[in-house]
Structures are given as structure tokens and as C-alpha cells.
């Protein structure tokens, strides 16, 4: 599904390389954690997969296609294949839960009415159907994050990328979110998640890639 081949990344104003000669393969349907200390390069891997950053050297494949040289006009269509989840969830506070979740469908020129079925389905999946007409401001942190997940899955992407999705949550809520990801994965979704939380990784029994100063130092199932 995703393949890094000798990928290096040096940011324009960076002191050293954020990624150095990274090669890795993530198969379809796999669930993978990216771990490592702060600044190790976890987010950089996700930024490269999502097309936010271009690599300095090496090649990245997505579904067999080389995405290293995507043009600006191709990028939006490529991004529709990916669902993204963030630590700060990036919800639009002046829109309802339904409107937030519907966004990936609305940008494909669907009307709200047409999007509604998929929206309800996604909210059901994350257990928030009852909050469909609420504004995100009135939701708890865990609920906000689940809305973010609903938005990421609503358009049925091939891959979910999550950057510290439990970073702002306490242990119980993290467990809750984690089991949601595991459930999505068992439905067949490919999931790549960057996290600090090694307990979470350990309890999941999934593949974990550890980075250190931009290099892969271990890649195993715990």
C-alpha cells in the first residue's frame, strides 16, 4: 500500500535531516505505529505520505504509484484517498458535527442531503450519532476526537493517517479511541499512527516502527 524507498528529508531551514535513508513497506489492511522521541521524524513520515512535504531524496509509492512528484493540481485528488486525524482534531467550530463530518463529501460537490447517509453511518461507527446537530464546542475532548475520526472515514479512504490522536486525552479516553482504530483496522482499513504512548502500543499487539533522529531503529510486532 505504502512504500518508502531510501527516503531522506531535509527541511528548508532545518539543521539536520529529519529523515535519513528511510525504507519501509506498509501492506494493505495493516495497522502500524510510528514511535520514537520528540523530533525523531514521525510527523515527517505522515507529512510525506499526505503530500504536505516533498522528499529531498528517495521515492514514495502509494498503491503502487510514485507520489514523489505529484503536481499541485493532482494533490487534492490524491488526498481524497487518505483520511487524516490530528492531535488538535482540526474541526470547524462554527459548523455542526454533521457539517464537519460531511466536508470530505461536500468538496466532491455532493449536497448535504446526499452526504447525510454516509455522515450518519460514520457517526454511528464512532458512537456519536446522537450529537449530529451539536457544535463541536459543546463536545468533550474525546468526543471531538471521535468526530475527527468520523470525518476521516466518511469518504471511505484507503488509508488512515493519525498524528498523536490521543495526545490530548487521558488514559481511559485514549483506550476508547484506540479500540476504535483497532475496530476500523479489523474492518480492513490501513492505519498509520504516530504516537508517544508506548503503553497504548504495547496493549495493541500491532507492528511498531521506531524512529530515532530520522532513522528506523526497530520495526517489529510487540
Amino acid at each position, binding site marked *: 500500500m505504502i512504500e518508502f524507498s531510501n527516503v531522506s528529508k531535509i527541511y528548508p531551514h532545518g539543521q539536520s535531516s529529519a529523515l535519513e535513508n528511510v525504507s519501509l513497506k506498509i501492506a494493505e489492511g495493516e495497522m502500524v505505529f510510528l514511535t520514537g522521541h520528540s523530533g525523531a521524524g514521525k*510527523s515527517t513520515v*505522515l*507529512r510525506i505520505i*499526505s503530500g*504536505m512535504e516533498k522528499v529531498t531524496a528517495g521515492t514514495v509509492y502509494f498503491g503502487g504509484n510514485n507520489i514523489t512528484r505529484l503536481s*499541485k*493540481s493532482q494533490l*487534492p*485528488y*490524491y*488526498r*481524497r484517498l487518505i483520511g*487524516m486525524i*490530528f492531535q488538535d482534531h*482540526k*474541526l*470547524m467550530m462554527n459548523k455542526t458535527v454533521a457539517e464537519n463530518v460531511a*466536508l*470530505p463529501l461536500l*468538496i466532491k*460537490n*455532493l*449536497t448535504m442531503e*446526499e452526504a447525510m447517509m454516509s455522515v450518519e453511518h460514520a457517526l454511528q461507527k464512532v458512537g456519536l450519532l446522537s450529537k449530529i446537530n451539536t457544535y463541536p464546542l459543546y463536545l468533550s475532548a474525546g468526543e471531538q476526537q471521535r468526530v475527527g475520526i468520523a*470525518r476521516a472515514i466518511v*469518504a471511505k479512504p484507503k488509508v488512515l493517517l493519525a*498524528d498523536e490522536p490521543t495526545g490530548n486525552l487521558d488514559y481511559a479516553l485514549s483506550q476508547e479511541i484506540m479500540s476504535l482504530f483497532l475496530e476500523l483496522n479489523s474492518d480492513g482499513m490501513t492505519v498509520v499512527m504516530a504516537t508517544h504512548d508506548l503503553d497504548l502500543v504495547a496493549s495493541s499487539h500491532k507492528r511498531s516502527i521506531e524512529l530515532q533522529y530520522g532513522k528506523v531503529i526497530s520495526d517489529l510486532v510487540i
Partner: protein
Amino acid sequence: MTETLNFINVCRGQISIFRKSFNALFGRNAGGTTLTISVIAISLLIPIVFYLLINNVLVLTENMKTGRELTVYFKDNVSAENASEIRDAFSKDYRIQEATLITAEDAMESFSQSLGITDADKWLLNDNPLPNAIMLTPKSEYLTESELNKMIAEIEKSKEVLLVQLDKQWVNRLNSIIKFLNATTIGIGCILLLSVILSITNCISSIIVKHKEEIEVMKLVGATNSYIITPYVYLGMWFGFIGGAIAIWISAIIVYVAGTLIYNIAESYGSHIEIFGINIVEIFVVTGSSALIAAIVAFVSARVNIARIEPNI
């Protein structure tokens, strides 16, 4: 089949974005949008008023445009009696309303009066150098340029006539005033266009800055730039349309007030002047072009600003 459905979908989407962009005029953008629409309205109003002023002057002076009187000067060998006969002939011409004889003596009289020359001085001139002449006032339907030129050519052919002069000095003066007004209107229009462009650009940029996070999210989920830009283009269109409509409305009020005033003044002098405002076609042209220009400016501004926003994690 699916393409048709797709097309219908896109159209429906556009209509809903268009409707929503109207709402974007209010709410948290209200301050900026009000200001921008005001700038557009004022910037349009000033050229519209100039335009109406020029056109009203043109219409009011249309039948005076060519000058109203022809002076026919005779050759030296044409006596006052001859001139009088010719005058009688002219007064029977179907095109002529009035023909007045101005003998050399009459002309000398008024000439010397206007210069304050005494009889004694006149005696010094001993010979009257002025020709006999007649003044012709054509009927108003023959006061067009082509009819007058035809008449002049005809009269100049006759062997008694030295030259025919059309009194049009003031016409030239009027024309140069109108030329000046036209140039002023265009000049002011250009400056105002610049201020319109700046205010729309400024307003759109500040709205985009306010929506920066939303735009980032849209880009993250795969919205194309044109999808993100569209609402701003429609917003610009609304700016132009509403600004244009307000300008027309205010110009109508001005025309009504000024028109009534001028009508009353003219009435008290026993004449009849009507001021006209902007017509239906012009209303469409003003609102349409204003909406189009504003939409183009908004498009460029949104494109530049949105290209700068890139999502990050």
C-alpha cells in the same frame, strides 16, 4: 448518463454555494463587506452622475448643436434693393422660418454703436466697407447638420452671394466643455476603479485570513483550489451587484431631486426642461459589469491568498 448526473450535481452545488455566499455578506464579515460595498457604490455613483450630466446637457442642446442662424453676405455689387428682393424669395422657402435683411447701413449703425463711433468718425470712413446681408433662421426640423450644410452649399452657389456663415461659436465652446467633462469622467473613473480593486482585494484577503483554519482543513480532505475559491468569487459578484444597485438607486434619487428643481426653475421662465436618469439597458450594463469586474478581482485575490495557505500537522 452519469456525466449528466455529475453535471446536475455540480450545478446544484454551485447554486447552494452561491446562496451561501450571499449570507457571507453578513455575520462576522459584515463590517468589511459593508465598507467594500459602500466604496463600490460611491465609485460607481460619481461616474454615473457625470455621465448623466453630460448626456442631459447633450440632449438639452441637441437642437442648438448646429447653431440656429445663417448669415448670408452679398457681394459688393448687390444693392440693398436687390438684397431685399432676395430676402423676400428666401422667406417663401419652405425651410426658412424667418429672413431678416441687414443692409450695410444697418450693420454700420450697430457696429458703430457697439464701438461708440460718432457720426463724425463715420464720415471719415467715407465709404461703408460692410456688405449687405440677410439673416436666415431655418425651421427647427431643418436645423440638423446635414440639412444646414446642404442649404449653405445651395446658397453659396448663387452669384450674388459672397459667403454664408453659420453661427456656431458657442457650439464649439459647448463641445469643448463636454470633451473636458468626458475626459474628467474617465480620469476619475480610473482612479475609482483602482480604489474598488484595492478595497475588494483587501476585504477578500481579510475574510480568507479569518477562514484560514477552515481552508487548511478543506485542503487536507482534498478540496481543489477552485472549489475553495468559488464562494469568494460569488461574494465578489454580490459586492459588485449590490454596489451597482445602490449606486443606481442613489443616482435615481439625485435625478429626481435635481430634475424637479430644474423643471420648476425652467417652468418659471416659461420653458420646459426634463432631466432623465439612467435607462433599463444602462442599469443592466452597470450592475452586470460591476458584478463581473468585482468577481474577477475577487477571483484573483482569492487565488493568490488561497495558494499561500498550506495545511500542516
